[in-house]
């Protein structure tokens, strides 16, 4: 089981990273078997992310990070609140990620800020972003204001959110495993995971067996030309 934490914290050490680590630890504690946790620090990728906008392709370290996110079974994303929303760096990372990379992927949303007044940024900014990316967001999003690090409540919310994420990880087929994987555990292997092999004129754009666009790791599956041509016949 691969869990990836995406942290947009800027300071070292960073409370954003700390929140991500705690959420990851709480999740891992609830998942049976081996769990591999990788942390993507966007601070270290800031220049490559900017270059991706000007070049059109990711540099080597960004490419590896995008690949890790695409291959993850679940994500924990954490951003500081800047100007009433997620940070620009946080958004930029998801702007250079392939738009289909998160389809169906369980994502735990989290944010940090100076005071609790910004906590609804999780619902008003982060959740719509991940809804657009068709991720499966866990119901509980975790906000940590400065004061929360010395108060009751954060640990409880952390546990609740981690439990929800762990629950989704249990039923979701591993990304990249293609059709059938984990299908017995529930009905969540929806059409997006039906097959990596094209059987009709529609290109399966979901992260199936062959598709991992964005990281540049693989080309999307190709539709046989006769089908493309036939689809155009009047």
């Amino acid at each position: 089981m691969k869990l990836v934490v995406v942290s947009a914290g800027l300071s070292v050490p960073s409370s954003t990273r700390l929140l991500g680590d705690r959420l990851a630890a709480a999740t891992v504690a609830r998942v049976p078997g081996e769990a591999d946790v990788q942390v993507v620090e966007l601070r270290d990728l800031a220049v490559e992310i900017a270059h991706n906008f000007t070049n059109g392709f990711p540099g080597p370290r960004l490419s590896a990070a995008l690949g890790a996110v695409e291959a993850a079974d679940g994500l924990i994303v954490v951003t500081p609140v800047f100007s009433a929303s997620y940070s620009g760096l946080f958004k930029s990372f998801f702007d250079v990620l392939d738009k289909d990379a998160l389809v169906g992927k369980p994502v735990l949303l989290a944010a940090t800020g100076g005071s609790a007044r910004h906590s609804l940024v999780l619902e008003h900014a982060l959740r719509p972003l991940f809804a657009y990316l068709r991720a499966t967001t866990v119901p509980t999003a975790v906000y940590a204001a400065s004061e929360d690090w010395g108060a009751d409540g954060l640990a409880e919310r952390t546990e609740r959110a981690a439990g929800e994420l762990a629950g989704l990880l249990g039923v979701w087929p591993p990304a990249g495993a293609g059709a059938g994987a984990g299908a017995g555990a529930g009905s969540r292997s929806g059409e997006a995971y039906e097959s990596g092999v094209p059987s009709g004129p529609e290109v399966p754009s979901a992260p199936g067996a062959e598709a991992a666009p964005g990281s540049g790791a693989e080309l999307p599956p190709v539709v046989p030309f006769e089908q493309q041509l036939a689809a155009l016949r009047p």
Partner: protein
Amino acid sequence: MMQFGIFSVGDVTPDPTTGRTPTERERIKAMVAIALKAEEVGLDVFATGEHHNPPFVPSSPTTMLGYIAAQTERLVLSTATTLITTNDPVKIAEDYAMLQHLADGRVDLTMGRGNTGPVYPWFGKDIRQGINLAIENYALLRRLWTEKVVNWEGKFRTPLQGYTSTPAPLDGVPPFVWHGSIRSPEIAEQAAYYGDGFFHNNIFWPADHTKRMVELYRNRYAHYGHGTPEQAIVGLGGQVFMRKNSQDAVREFRPYFDVAPVYGHGPSLEEFTAQTPLTVGSPQQVIEKTLSFREYAGDYQRQLFLMDHAGLPLKTVLEQLDILGEEVVPVLREEFAKGRPANVPDAPTHGSLLAAKNVRAAEAAAQEGARA
């Protein structure tokens, strides 16, 4: 034989070292001078872009290529690329057949979808149909070039009844077609399906991406029965700036690189040369880098270099072409020929396509005779 040549975007860009912007007339005439120089220094191909918005001048490729054809003897005139999406395929069929006659067959085309979104609506097309337009328009273009009378109905164009495209292709042999795409597997698939060439511009993206696209094309080419994967027809772009001493090349090119359209204001020259095929250095470095393309693309047929962009003055570009033609390409021809399997075909030309057609006709006649 591999072909070597140049491809021009035709951008009108201020020279960052002087602040001077050439006029459109100057830029157009410079493109012609560059093409003539390409023939003079022994290159095989000149290809022009097609654009319909400033700061680019080449909106009318066959006008320019016809003018160049009249002043050259050997140079193959090509495009990089012809907008198969927004041009009427009927007009492409006519324009390039006409050019083919005037140029005595020294014509081929690279089909592309363009890089400027608004060109679609400006020409009355829907960008969301980009791939489908490329597929349908090209399917019609092939029929117009190979069938005497065409009756046709499709999704994107008014139907044709009893249409004959004139002039017919020279000797009944349509211009060879390459399909260019940076990232669309559908286009590699299209090229493979028809047994056409596949051109990867190769200059803005890391090599491993180009490798995957070329591999896909080669495998699908074999799938469709045109030959082995190694026999597929591959073209690559490249981008170089050379001086005798590599430090001089870097010093002279850096101000152009730093503000160049597309990649300027982004990564450093050093990062970009490390990650993409761009080579800035000595002729020997260019030779080594270009020879390395074969490691990921296999033995291929056509290598085009981008030489005139980002505001480089004409004088500098002509000097670059002298170095390319005198010091680089002769070595590349020799080195690429080494170890090249005998079954890897040469770059198709009008002559080779006509010869192949005559062989097919003779075989058909012999079979007919055997039956009679």
